[in-house]
């Protein structure tokens, strides 16, 4: 049973069609990497999965719940789907610890002490337990992104979405974030990652997809995708970024 099913998802921004019918499925524990040129609709698609954007046609079912305008469904799904943004989006007025415990306390209604214990565990997991009492502004980009990962994980999500998590980072910080993501992938988390880090795709992805102009033009295993792509568009894309 697949945990996310999308069927013919279409999305317009005014007159402009950003998604032109995307269909895909992802199984539990699978790691999917999405790449493609700028403006091809990658962000739009994964933002549809937790309803930060609304699709207009087609259907998306996440863990058995269909995404509709029903507020209840949206809340259920957002609690199960964690998201990490390109620009971190940490809450600057809260400490790292408060950033991570905010949702467990207010959304999951857990006790403060339990949430803090869990948060320390997560900070250990992403390798920055000593930063718990600092404010986001006092951390490096790589550390901030790892806090953002911990914050998303604090809700015990079943699925994690990553939208270019490393593209706002200096090269020397990319590795620490990718390591945290690799560790997460190995632990069996279902992940959809939009990235141009091909090394990461080769190493951990179960499947790689290429988006172009709002369509999914190729879907393949990493080995096939890089060594033996089916589509000319993929060849062109790979030649440009590699």
């Amino acid at each position, binding site marked *: 049973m697949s945990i996310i099913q999308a069927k013919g998802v279409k999305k317009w921004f005014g007159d402009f069609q950003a998604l032109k019918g995307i269909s895909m499925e992802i199984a539990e524990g699978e790691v999917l990497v999405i790449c493609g040129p700028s403006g091809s609709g990658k962000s739009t698609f994964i933002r549809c999965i937790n309803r930060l954007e609304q699709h207009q046609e087609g259907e998306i079912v996440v863990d058995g719940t269909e995404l509709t305008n029903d507020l209840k469904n949206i*809340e259920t799904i957002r609690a199960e789907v*964690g998201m990490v943004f390109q*620009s971190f*989006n940490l809450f600057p007025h809260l400490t790292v610890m408060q950033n991570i415990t905010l*949702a467990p306390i*207010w959304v999951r*209604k857990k006790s403060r002490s339990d949430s803090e214990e869990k948060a320390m565990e997560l900070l250990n997991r992403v390798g920055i337990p000593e930063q718990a009492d600092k404010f986001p502004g006092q951390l490096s980009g790589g550390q901030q992104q790892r806090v953002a990962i911990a914050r998303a994980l604090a809700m015990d999500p079943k699925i994690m979405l990553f939208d270019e998590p490393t593209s706002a980072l200096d090269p020397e910080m990319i590795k620490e974030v990718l390591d945290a993501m690799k560790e997460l992938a190995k632990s069996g988390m279902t992940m959809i990652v939009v990235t141009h880090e091909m090394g990461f795709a080769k190493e951990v992805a179960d499947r790689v997809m290429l988006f172009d102009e709002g369509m999914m033009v190729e879907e393949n295993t990493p080995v096939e995708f890089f060594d033996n792509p089916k589509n000319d568009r993929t060849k062109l894309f790979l030649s440009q970024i590699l």
Partner: protein
Amino acid sequence: MVDVIKKKAKEVQESLFSSVGSSVLTIGTSYLVLNFFRGMFGFVMSSDKDWLAVLNNMQLYMVQAYPESDFIRVWISVGLTFVFSGVSIGLWRSDDRSNISVMFDRFYKLGLGVLFFTIVAPTFTSYMGNDGYVITEEVFSRSSRIGMLIPVLLITVGFFLLKNRKINFSFNNSDAVFLYLSIPIALIWIIELPTIQLDQNKDRIIPDPLMPIANTTKVPWTVIFVLFLLSYFIGIYFKEVKRLKNIMSISWFLLPLLIFSWIFKKPQIEMAEVLTGDIPIFLIFFAVGLGTVLLINNPIVKKYYSIYIGVVIVATIAGVFISIPMLAKACLLLLGLFVTVVPAVSTSQQGKKSLIIIWAVALVTLTFLLRGGASETGIVVPGSSIFGGFSLTWLLAIFGTYVSFPLGVLLALGRNSKLPIVRIICTGIIELVRSVPYITWLFFASVTLAVFLPAGVEFNLIVRVLMVTAFFSGAYFAENIRGGLQSIPKGQYEAADAIGMSPFQKIGLIVLPQALRAVIPTLVSSAITAFKDSSLVTIIGLFDFLTIGKTVIDNQSVPVNFVGHQRENLIFVAVVYWIFTFTLSRRSMKIEKRLGLGER
């Protein structure tokens, strides 16, 4: 020791006499400042000035003609404010500590100030006498100068030595507030201010030093200080109880209303009316609310819930026009708000429980306030207004901030809302209120407002002024806050959505804290403006603090003649205003620093 002085001297030389230009500037400015202070001291000390015009009118300044028999109400409201402050300071006490040398440094600087005064104060001063001749008199004799200089010098040097000694003792910054406050409290027991006595011919007798003016206030102030201190300890003791902080924050918003409707108004209550009116109305509405919360998850109720909301809204609108008790009208309005939030909040057992508690508290508060605020006041005052002076200024200032601030937040959020109706209404209110001068609004409050209120509803002039003031400063707050809201990046909203926060949580925990922090300086300057602008109420016949000093005392001839002593009073008023606004802006700087920690 010598090193320290050498270092200081070098610092002074570097900062003030580094070049010819800066030396000239330093000397020129010093000359001007010195002369200014000499002039001021001469003015203050000249026998032409009657400072008793200020001292003897403290009561007038504070509460105007408020009847003495009801002073206990004023003291209770002042005391209540201090108790609230004490608990809050204790609850939110930070662990900031300072070394004892900081305190010595303060006393040292104070000593320097007094020293400056003793040295530069002029020996002679002159003023224009009644007959047109200039009169010169000795105001500060050599012997009294020396008599003052020596002890002050000793004390100052003492504190200077103490502050430069490394003493390993630190104190909590909040504790120090109480230490500093205890000084004026002790002083009112020690320093005896004279009060004026009249003889049979209504001529002034030399002030009798055995009749201190502070006599009537020293017991209440001391009691209040002790309560303040006690409540501070209570606050510290319960520091860890999170719920108490929430209760305290809400109570702060209710305090001005409570003071106004119960302490300043002295309501006349008919017990029969309460028994046949208030209590049944309260019980009925409580039952309706309770039923709504308990039955909401029943499928049949759920199905027809929108019809129920419609009925309540229609009843509310109808209630405004038909004649039912004021309390029932207000309760209907409250019920309308309540039933719209019930479905969203009552999803868990916990949510239901808090809903019921909120409903009960809201009803009790409403009943209480309406009984107090709407009933006739039992305070009889000669003249038109119930009270004036500093208490009026203070009430307008507190109200201008405590009520208009939340109003401003709501208006700002409404103006940013996605719902067109809400947006249009809020934008309309803000633009309308801002585009008309405050003075016009005051006239509106005093002359026209009654026309717009439902028949039978009548408010005291002060209440009407408070209403327009709340809206006026609320509109300004709203625009400031909106500026803050706009400074919040879209990513913050998305991040809050992505972790599953509800719209209310998103606004309350993520958006508002950041937006408000961004606009603290403008908010404080709005609050200061509101405080000072309150003196405009004089034009509609209310006697605020400034009016008392400028007009009332200057025209006072009974029992003591103070005609022509406006300047002393204006200086006094200016100093009081300055103390309050200065403290406020200093506080806000501290808060800014503390909140600024997480700034990028």
